[in-house]
């Protein structure tokens, strides 16, 4: 290990080692990304192609009117997330609801499905104000607004 390397080779060896480490990091990263990234689902996607229970995913949708209730322990909150296509996913969340979390508004939740098809949320991202909206949520609201407009334009 000790003692200077042959001068001619030193630069080359350094470069090769650095490249090996960096490429290794890149390969490792891309392998890990494929396994560890959590995918974004809408309720209808969960209905049509349910993710494996226990795998970290992100769920986005609207909190269904009248579905929000606090369970008996006073901490766990249950509500239903829905989308335009009327698929629904029941959600359980233990914790303090974020500011401006209301029924009829959008929500993005980090968490996983359990075996019974309930989404267990670890974290809820809700809208804080007009300037601070999770991006998936913003797009969803645009869709919803578009859908509403189309709906209004229809002859009765």
């Amino acid at each position, binding site marked *: *290990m*000790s*003692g*200077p*390397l042959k*001068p001619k080779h*030193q*630069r080359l060896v*350094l470069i090769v*080692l*650095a490249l090996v*480490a*960096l490429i*290794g*990091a*890149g390969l*490792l*990263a*891309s392998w*890990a*990304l494929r396994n*560890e*990234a*959590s*995918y*974004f689902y809408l309720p209808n996607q969960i209905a049509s192609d349910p993710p494996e229970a226990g795998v*970290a995913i*992100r769920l986005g949708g609207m909190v269904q009117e009248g579905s929000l209730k*606090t369970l008996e*322990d*006073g*901490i766990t909150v249950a509500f239903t997330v829905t989308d335009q296509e009327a698929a629904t996913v029941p959600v359980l969340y*233990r*914790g*303090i*609801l*974020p*500011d*401006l979390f209301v029924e009829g508004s959008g929500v993005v939740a*980090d968490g996983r499905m359990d075996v019974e098809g309930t989404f267990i949320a670890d*974290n809820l991202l809700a809208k*804080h*104000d*007009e*300037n*601070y909206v*999770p*991006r*998936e949520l*913003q797009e969803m609201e645009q869709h919803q607004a578009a859908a509403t407009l189309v709906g209004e334009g229809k002859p009765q």
Partner: protein
Amino acid sequence: MIAELGLAALWIASALAVLQLVGGVLAQKQGGSEMAKLVRPAAITQGLLAAFAFLMLLWLFAITDLSVKLVATNSHSAKPLIFKLSGAWGNHEGSMLLWITVMAMAGGLIALVERRLPEKTMMATLAAQAFVGIGFYAFLLLSSNPFERLPQPAVEGMGLNPLLQDIGLAFHPPTLYFGYVGLSVAFSFAVGALMTRKVGPDFARAMRPWVLGAWVFLTLGITAGSYWAYYELGWGGWWFWDPVENASLMPWLAATALLHSVSVLAARDALRAWTIMLGVVAFSMSMLGTFLVRSGILTSVHAFAVDPERGSFILFLLALYIGGALLLFALRAGTVTEGERFSVTSREGALVFNNVMLSAILGIVLLGTLYPLLTEAFDVRVSVGPPYFNPVGAIFTVPMLIVMTIGPMLRWRGDSFDRIKFPAAIVASIMLAVLALVLVLGSYGILPVLGLAIAIGLGVASFLPLRGRKLTRVPIATWGMIMAHFGIAVALFGMASETAFSEEKLAAVSVGDATDVGPWTVVLGSVEPVAGPNWTAIEGRLQASYDGSEPILLNPQSRNFWAPPQETTESTLATRWNGQLYAVIGNQASDGRWQLRLWWKPFVTLIWYGGILVALGGVLAIIGRVRGDLKRRYVRARSDQRREDAAAL
């Protein structure tokens, strides 16, 4: 009038930047140019004008001039003065003006104080600084004018996002910007050195204080940002791997690598091309960070207004500068002659290892941050979080930290491992002992356990370079290194301890009831309505007692701001030497009970104290290096003087 003065100053400053670029480039011609004489004054005046423009913006915010669009959309007359001022940079236009200001002032400062570099390299450096500046002036003046007037003055301002009305946040963005933009100096130095092919110890010594300075600000900015997120967002976490957090971490990683390679270049004249490359990469990461934050392209707690036009403008600048610099590097790197050689077991060897590991971590963070953008192109939505970053990052962080324990003890050029066998064995046995102890005490995750062991080993090891030395004769810069390395150990201990030993309690409590978390007993005394200058709130009155001792009062709030209308959760903290109690109050359930979320986080504060120590270490290193340079300059000047005197005789 004030707004127009500010705008005029900006236009003149941008014109001066053009002059600075032209003069600097002409100075590269054989025989130089008369224009070159204008470069330094142009750089200094440009810095002053940009600073003037920023002061004008601060003034507009201080007096809440509602005829200015930026003030009207981001401020409110009923806001404490400090938040009026911090509102000046709490928005897109103002923060870009701050960016320009810091960049122009840094350019002016190099022009004013830097005397070590050959004149030609200096001119190329200032030209590069001006070239980068011009792009950002164009961005500011053409697409985000902070001084724009409204056709009709507004009656009242729209207010500042309440999340941002916080003292920590008043100083977090400017600190980060000083770091981001300070790295532009490293970038310009690198480009200047490539242009003139003058890469060597003098170049490294000239560049080092700037890198150190930028790195100190980045360290403080990240530390402050982490603490702000911790207590303001009310989620109790200190790092979320949020894209914008990563955007500040990536330049820090690159700057940390640069800091170490520049030391090798200064002391041993090795790693020439690599140091130049890192100078380019570090500032590229700063610009990428700005792009990620300012374009709102990623989902983030920081992603404010999404504006595709601005995003594409910054993306264009990013491509131009990074692409240009990398192209220059590709063309010129081969002509940078190879530096001195060294053995694998040597200080240089350890530092190369550090650099490779830091680069690998940087690559991992970069890939993880950009991956969601990549998949989105294929219409697949993903988010990348701790399950990716923590284990993958650790694979490279752990070996780096282990080598960090012995690296500083190795000698330059070549050393034998035998010489440091004894201290290395001590460090290794400390780590193993801690590892065994924690494993016996309980079952925790592998990362926090490794973290605790390495933190304690590194904490001890960071002082080992002092072994066998006379403490009074250890250079200040060495003390700086020791303090920074010790700071890393302290912060790591805090992170590992928080992860392993935190206790969380989520409870629904009636008024008068008690609940336990860790060694604490918390009683909900009452819940009262309270009011502030621009908000009302409900406030929980908690009596928290640690292990049966005298209770302290905590008042977590749930606030309603009315300008703009928004709710925020104000957590409260009870800090002890051995950790923090963190309390948040939530909604009232239908049966009258209140939700409380409590955490006991042992030694969590060490995370930020560690960050501060690291930054202080950087400050010590700057003091030591600058003093050493001044001394060297003085000695050289005196010997020149003597030679002249001798020749005159």
